[in-house]
């Protein structure tokens, strides 16, 4: 391994180089552009042997990756925001076709008003597309997701495409220290992609076919089972990863001082770093607070959430999303997890960071103190006014 000072985008590109996809097809969009530029440089200088295909749109980028996956190749693409929405039609083709493509999405706000900065409304709008969705906290985890995502997606019992999300700019464009594994280590971790789900002249078969009312449900059921199998595949991948690289991850969620916490903030992505610092600060003052970070939104960590918050007095969900006319979608999902486990505690929802708006440590402290003072609500940070 070698320490490098890299941005989130660059770290992800280094991780993809180690995963050796045979085909990369992508269309540039801020703030994803650098990961694609970096990979094209790697192909150009010969340090990555891959077919780099310049396409004319995001719709084509994912269509192209599917074509590659359908002949048994490992494929990569990347996008962001409007690009993700433009390829939405293809997202369900890739998941329904069970093609284990990996895509990096640089989380960015969606128009209008036009805005290039980070929030998570792009990927969260696609939770039902049948893709695994993971959210990185920092550049190291981004690189490690690049490697682990292929291992997980390509397990036969999973065979599901994998979207890794990096917060636009605050993660994609921020430089920090990253351990870059050696090629030998990466090869020991990630075997070449082998599948029977491909077009093969020696074993002819029909892929990407129609299924009418009689059979359609069975296919969707199998797709759901494939997604549920991700949890075990994540555990296996992380065990193998820890043995080879010495870094251990914690499954679908990461708990930070939740064991004895009265008040727990649930969030996802790079803001978790600031929440950890805030938990440290409040713990020094004797406050029993904790963080639960959702590393994955699909499959959704229902059991992990219930287990982590079962002894808490109240929880809040902080997310960079709003489902207009309801609440943040992560909040809806968290409440469902609690209800299924018969955990009846007050919950609050804070919508923040929209269009790249900074979330301050003072705002995070206020969330914890509001929980303690039994002020439960749905609220837009920096706008104010309780919605319920």
């Amino acid at each position: 391994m070698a320490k490098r000072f890299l941005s989130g985008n660059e770290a992800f590109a280094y991780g993809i180089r180690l995963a050796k996809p045979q085909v990369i097809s992508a269309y540039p969009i801020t703030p994803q552009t650098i990961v694609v530029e970096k990979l094209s440089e790697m192909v150009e200088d010969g340090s990555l042997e891959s077919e780099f295909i310049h396409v004319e749109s995001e719709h084509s980028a994912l269509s192209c990756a599917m074509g590659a996956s359908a002949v048994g190749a490992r494929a990569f693409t990347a996008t962001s925001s409007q690009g993700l929405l433009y390829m939405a039609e293809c997202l369900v083709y890739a998941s329904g076709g069970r093609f284990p493509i990996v895509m990096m999405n640089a989380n960015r706000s969606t128009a209008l008003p036009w805005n290039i900065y980070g929030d998570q409304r792009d990927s969260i709008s696609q939770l039902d597309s049948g893709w695994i969705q993971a959210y990185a906290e920092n550049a190291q985890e981004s690189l490690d997701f690049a490697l682990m995502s292929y291992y997980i997606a390509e397990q036969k019992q999973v065979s599901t495409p994998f979207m890794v999300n990096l917060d636009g700019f605050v993660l994609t464009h921020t430089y920090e220290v990253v351990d870059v594994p050696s090629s030998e280590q990466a090869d020991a971790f990630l075997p070449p992609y082998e599948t029977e789900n491909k077009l093969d002249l020696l074993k002819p078969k029909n892929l990407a076919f129609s299924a009418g009312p009689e059979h359609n449900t069975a296919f969707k059921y199998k797709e759901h089972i494939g997604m549920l199998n991700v949890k075990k595949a994540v555990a296996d991948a992380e065990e193998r990863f820890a043995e080879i690289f010495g870094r251990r991850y914690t499954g679908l969620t990461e708990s930070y001082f939740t064991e004895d916490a009265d008040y727990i903030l649930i969030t996802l992505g790079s803001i978790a770093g600031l929440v950890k610092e805030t938990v440290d600060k409040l713990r020094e003052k004797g406050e029993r607070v904790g963080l639960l970070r959702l590393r994955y939104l699909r499959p959704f960590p229902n059991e992990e959430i219930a287990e982590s918050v079962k002894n808490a007095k109240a929880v809040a969900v902080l997310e960079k999303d709003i489902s207009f006319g309801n609440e943040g979608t992560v909040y809806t999902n968290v409440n469902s997890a609690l209800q299924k486990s018969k955990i009846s505690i007050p919950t609050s929802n804070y919508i923040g960071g929209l269009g790249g708006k900074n979330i301050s440590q003072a705002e995070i402290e206020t969330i914890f103190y509001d929980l303690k003072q039994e002020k439960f609500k749905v609220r837009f940070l920096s706008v104010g006014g309780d919605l319920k």
Partner: protein
Amino acid sequence: MTEILWHGRGGQGAFTAARLLGAAYSLRDDNSYALAFPSFGPERRGAPIRAFTKFADKPIGDRSEIQKADYIIFLDDTLFSDNAFSELKPEGKILLNTKRHINDERVITLDGDTLAADILGLPITNTVMLGAFAAVFDGIDLSDIEKAINENMPQKLHRKNIAVVTAAAKSIKKGSDI
């Protein structure tokens, strides 16, 4: 945490300097961490830009822009005014590239334009100010900066930039002896 705020104009390399400094600090051992990032947005040559470097002895979770800095570094003195002091912590210092004399003990000045013209043959002062910072800040050595330049800049730029970093550091040290 030590927070360093860079002011420059698009094209002067303020973010490159912020990034080199982060690399210099964090790659020297396993217990040093840094973040470096520019002010995000459209890039325009000549427009005022800011860049940020943060140092700490543990991973840094706060990815937001620096509000109050320990050091503010100006690559271009047309961007400097008394407003700068509102961004400075009480014990903070300002490093200013200027030919002027500033009568304020918080401000350390350096004629970076002349050093850059003599050594680089270009009006680019980002690495000049990096050398000046290394002379002022105890926690970093010139050898750390040299290593960061060697690992993160194109090879043809190594020799002259290391020379200008060294000259800038010397010039600051000499000034402080007087």
